[in-house]
């Protein structure tokens, strides 16, 4: 008799979470689905779901894909050397460097992007410094490069953290064993450290790729509103366009693509060790 009661207790403890999920995840999803599959008159239609295939939307989606893929690649290329360097630090320095990496995440996201707008603008700090060494001024603001810098800066910690966790977990003995068997530093990385960090890498990819594809604030501020990511298109459907049905339809189709992508990463994840964060 005690077991069901214990279960009841646990259910009780979980109820705030259940309420939260119902109110802020499930219910909004249902509302969005309902908007997506109806027209202004309230009749059932699938038109909005396929709106993503219209040329202008395809263009935005491809650009989003480009930004997200580029951002993910840059984050990976930046994260690995940083984490490897951190592995060689002492415990205290390691904690401090991790703190430094997380620090910007405590500042407001919009503020950080606005700061980048100042840095990258035509008469901003970057061009001032470049001018000092005789380069430029470069037109960076309102270009895809500016958006790329913004998303990489924003999402880099989300790539570093899971890779950091995975790599710090690797026992030093394994690295010594590899060296003992004749592996130089690069081979140790290629054959031992990298393969063992893949669960972390996959978590990092999911946490960087998806949000950088759907973000719209970065492109709004750093892209000058001219460069449209799929996120911007959706935003405008809701705000300026005031067409909630089209916006919801685009959101749903984007979500489907994201879920398909995630299904692939989770399939390759189950083959290796379990993922670190996701």
């Amino acid at each position, binding site marked *: 008799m005690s077991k069901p009661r214990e279960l009841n207790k646990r259910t009780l403890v979980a109820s705030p979470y259940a309420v939260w999920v119902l109110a802020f995840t499930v219910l909004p999803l249902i509302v969005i689905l309902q908007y997506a599959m109806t027209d202004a008159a309230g009749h059932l239609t699938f038109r909005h779901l396929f709106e993503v295939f219209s040329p202008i939307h395809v263009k935005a989606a491809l650009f989003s894909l480009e930004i997200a893929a580029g951002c993910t690649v840059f984050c990976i290329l930046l994260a690995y050397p940083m984490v490897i360097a951190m592995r060689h630090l002492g415990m205290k320095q390691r904690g401090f460097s991790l703190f430094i990496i997380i620090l910007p995440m405590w500042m407001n996201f919009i503020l950080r992007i606005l700061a980048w707008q100042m840095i990258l603008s035509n008469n901003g700090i970057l061009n001032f410094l470049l001018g000092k060494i005789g380069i430029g001024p470069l037109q960076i603001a309102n270009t895809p490069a500016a958006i790329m810098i913004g998303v990489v800066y924003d999402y880099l910690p989300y790539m570093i953290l899971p890779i950091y966790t995975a790599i710090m977990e690797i*026992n030093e003995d394994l690295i010594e064993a*590899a*060296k003992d*068997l004749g592996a130089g530093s690069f081979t140790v990385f290629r054959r*031992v450290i990298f393969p063992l960090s893949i669960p972390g890498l996959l978590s990092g990819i999911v946490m960087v790729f998806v949000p950088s594809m759907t973000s719209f604030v970065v492109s709004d501020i750093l892209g000058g509103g001219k460069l449209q990511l799929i996120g911007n298109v959706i935003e405008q459907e809701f705000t300026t366009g005031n067409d909630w049905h089209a916006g919801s339809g685009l959101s749903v189709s984007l979500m489907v693509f994201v879920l398909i992508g995630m299904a692939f990463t989770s399939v390759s994840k189950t083959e290796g060790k379990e993922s670190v964060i996701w």
Partner: protein
Amino acid sequence: MSDAILKMESISKSFDGKEILKDFDLEIGRNEFVTLLGPSGCGKSTILRIIGGFVKPDAGRVLFEGRDITALPPEKRNINTVFQKYSLFPHMTVGENIAFGLKLKKKSPEYIREKIDYALKLVNMEGYEHRNPESLSGGQQQRVAIARAIVNEPQVLLLDEPLGALDLKLRRVMQRELIKIKQEVGITFLYVTHDQEEALMMSDRILVMNKGIVQQEGNSKSIYDEPQNAFVADFIGDSNIIGGIMVRDRLVRIQGVEIPCVDEGFGNETPVDVVIRPEDLEIVSPENGYLRGQVQSVIFKGAYYEIKVESKGYEWMIQSVDPAPVGETVGLTIDPDNIQIMHKPVSADEEVIRDE
């Protein structure tokens, strides 16, 4: 030793200001099975790590076949290590683990294939090639680790307490197998352990170490039978260690009783330490023994009884196949051959380790 394959010359190493090794010398002959035996923290693992290339000595040289390899990184040394915690790569199968070193050496697939089969057979793990290391037991993992090291045909194999994580029974089995493997592959083994039985059973030569200093060096029999100081006597097996006076050659006074022995050259009336192994003491009737005492306790240990006899404030440990009645006064006798005389310790490292 003219045929030394590995030499350490006046190696010193400190960690955080604590001196682990000082002016340490070591010579290992080709095809020898040498064991470094000592309590934890005695510097034995540091020696192995210096030879493996994982630790740089503060001073001194490491010579491999006469060539100075002190500055060489581990991957450039023709030496392989079997680690205590196996350290198998969890993302590779058993076969891939074994092939790791060979692939780096760009050996042909046929050669690697052959070597994997050979090594798995050698360590009695045929059929496990495609298994995941994490699905194996500790003993099996260590076998794979040995195979992984041996396929590279190192000239010296370093073994860092390889059986330390295994249970007693498995350890005994693995000890026999290691001896067999050693004979089969014919390479030099440098073995580190704190298990004295393991050392006595497997080694050609044992170096008993304490506090970074070699206390005694020799084959198993000489280490066991003729410990040179109290530390060695105590560390290798159970011992009765008691202060005595060397009256003259071949005569020692213990607890006021003069007992014949076989040792010479200590001078006359010299204070010494006397070692008597528990299995060498014999319980006899009080009038027939050199020493007399009262039986304090009798514990059945399986193959023998462990009997404690108190005599003039010293508790003698005796191992005997016959029990004795507790409380009874008995005599103790011993063959002159079985008394081992040692000089009094001159430094802390030669003393018995006391449990704090």
